[in-house]
């Protein structure tokens, strides 16, 4: 459970006010130790500052110490800055509380701010008796919190991907970026769109970046820009998220499925050439689970037959292949900013990357209904823009992204070590590339039993993907199910474990212990 800290508790701690100090201090420590977050309300900043000032002044009168007003004030600010350093700031929102009609406007706002959180996940920690009496379900005294937590220790929910910790870490930047968009009001194609495109292009090293409405839209627009349509064939993998093949079929073309490598689960480059026909118009490898496929080999085959290569990098933004960034490994790279992706937004979003000027211009036009200028449509397009708010959110997340990639790689390697020690089969990574571990995936027999064990232990798992695309009812007529035996086998055995930059080593170890007990 999280706690919103009322001013009186903050003052008890900063001014070490006895007899209240010890319980207040211990309640905060207990909350943190049980995985809760401690929140301070931005609307209380001045109350904190000037009430602490007067508390310190009273103490000094009682103790007969002689500090000047300025010294007292300096001390007060230093104490508050240190106290606030490991707390979360909760923004004061207009409309929370009938500010001037309430007996105590600040209390009214504090109480109402709690309603932003899921029920029961936060309480106001206070020793204000009238508040405790008026809101018994929303408030707790330090003593009540300690008693309750000692009796029923709360354990934080084990998330498959922990987006909450990330959000808490970047909240000030996120809120600033979102509010800027609210105020400038250019919700479509605002300046954040250009800024994000420039930053993402620079990050990947690609000459151009075009943000679009989703990862699926990125693939669709790319195929449209290449002029792929009825009767054409696109070579790809059956062991992927459905969007990869869906966009091909939507355009009237045919996905030609090539089996995967048994160890990486990526498309097997050695099997591609045999599938090329005069109708082949593109090769679309997927950087599955966050690791690029054998792009040199794939690019070489494509060059031989003069074909473009589209990397479906929906899961691999941030990964590298022989020192180059994913999304900049072939003719076109497409990524997704779906919330759970390594770089995600808070809705749908995606991006296309290319060095090719003609493809860039085509993608930009197709993204906005094929228009070359307002209301002049030179080609058929789609409504495929990424909105300004989502771009503003990715911009906030980018600031932490390098750290997150490092964390993901380190956690992936630690998982590898633990799995290898325990003799658990896993997806392998090649030495000449990095994976950002969009998923950390192991191979198990009797998967449903293993899943049940994890469920019992309160650890979420997922399957990416249980049925290869050539066995899906909507696609099975496009390729015989038995043509890709490795994909078939892997679909039966893969299981993804909790992963994300904020996964703790303790959580990782409990995953390992659950696997070991099988």
């Amino acid at each position: 459970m999280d706690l919103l800290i009322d001013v009186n508790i903050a003052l008890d701690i900063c001014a070490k006010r006895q007899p209240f100090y010890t319980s207040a201090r211990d309640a905060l420590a207990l909350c943190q130790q049980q995985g809760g977050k401690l929140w301070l309300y931005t609307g209380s900043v001045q109350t904190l500052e000037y009430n602490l000032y007067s508390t310190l002044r009273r103490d000094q009168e009682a103790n007969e110490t002689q500090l000047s007003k300025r010294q007292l004030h300096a001390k007060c600010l230093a104490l508050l800055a240190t106290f606030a350093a490991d707390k979360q700031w909760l923004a004061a929102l207009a409309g929370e509380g009938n500010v001037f009609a309430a007996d105590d406007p600040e209390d009214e706002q504090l109480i109402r701010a709690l309603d932003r959180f899921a029920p029961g996940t936060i309480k106001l920690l206070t020793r204000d008796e009238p508040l405790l009496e008026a809101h018994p379900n929303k408030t707790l005294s330090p003593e009540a919190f300690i008693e309750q937590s000692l009796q029923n220790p709360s354990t934080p929910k084990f998330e498959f991907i922990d987006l909450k910790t990330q959000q808490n870490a970047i909240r000030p930047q996120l809120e600033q970026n979102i509010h800027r968009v609210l105020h400038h009001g250019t919700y479509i194609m605002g300046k954040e769109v250009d800024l994000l495109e420039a930053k993402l292009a620079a990050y990947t090293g690609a000459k151009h970046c075009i943000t679009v409405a989703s990862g699926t839209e990125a693939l669709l627009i790319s195929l449209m820009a290449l002029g792929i349509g009825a009767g054409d064939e696109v070579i790809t993998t059956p062991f992927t998220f459905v969007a990869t093949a869906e966009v091909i079929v939507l355009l009237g073309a045919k996905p030609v499925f090539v089996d995967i490598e048994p160890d990486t689960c990526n498309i097997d480059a050695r099997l591609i050439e045999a599938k090329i026909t005069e109708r082949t118009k593109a090769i679309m490898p997927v950087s599955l689970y966050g690791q690029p496929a054998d792009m040199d080999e794939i690019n070489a085959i494509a060059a031989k037959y003069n074909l473009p290569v589209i990397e479906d990098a929906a899961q691999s933004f941030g990964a590298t292949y022989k020192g180059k960034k994913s999304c900049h490994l072939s003719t076109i790279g497409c990524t997704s900013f779906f919330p759970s992706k390594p770089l995600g937004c808070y809705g749908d979003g995606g991006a296309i990357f290319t060095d090719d000027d003609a493809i860039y211009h085509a993608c930009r036009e197709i993204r906005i209904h094929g228009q070359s200028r307002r209301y002049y449509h030179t080609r058929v397009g789609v409504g495929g823009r990424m909105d300004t708010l989502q771009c503003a959110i990715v911009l906030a997340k980018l600031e932490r992204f390098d750290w997150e990639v490092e964390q993901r790689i380190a956690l992936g390697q630690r998982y590898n070590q633990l799995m290898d020690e325990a003799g658990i089969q896993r997806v392998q990574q090649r030495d000449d590339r990095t994976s950002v571990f969009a998923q950390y995936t192991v191979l198990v027999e009797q998967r449903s039993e293993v899943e049940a064990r994890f469920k019992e232990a309160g650890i979420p798992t997922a399957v990416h993907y249980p049925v290869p695309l050539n066995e899906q009812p909507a696609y099975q007529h496009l390729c015989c199910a038995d043509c890709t035996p490795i994909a078939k086998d892997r679909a039966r055995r893969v299981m993804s474990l909790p992963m994300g930059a904020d996964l703790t080593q303790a959580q990782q170890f409990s995953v390992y212990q659950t696997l070991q007990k099988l």
Partner: protein
Amino acid sequence: MQVEAIYHQGRLEFILPVKLRSGRIPLVVQVPDEAVIKDTPYQPQPTYQLPPEVLALALVMEEKLDQIRNAPLPNDADLPSLTAKQLERIEAFSLRDEIRSWN
């Protein structure tokens, strides 16, 4: 000795001026029953048996703030002077305390 005093806004004010030695002086105060809001006999704060890791965390926080509490402060003259706005706020907040004590 016994002296009469008035309790007002958290302070005791002597009716007749009394000169006291400086420092803390423990007093015994008689409070009329009707002035007490409710039955609030003095209760010592409860103590809890906290897990050692919680206590360790609590002490880390305490240590950080103690360092600031005990750090020598710069000379008054070396600090920026309080602005008119800050002084106004100090006054405003004591006024707020006063308004609250009316109820």
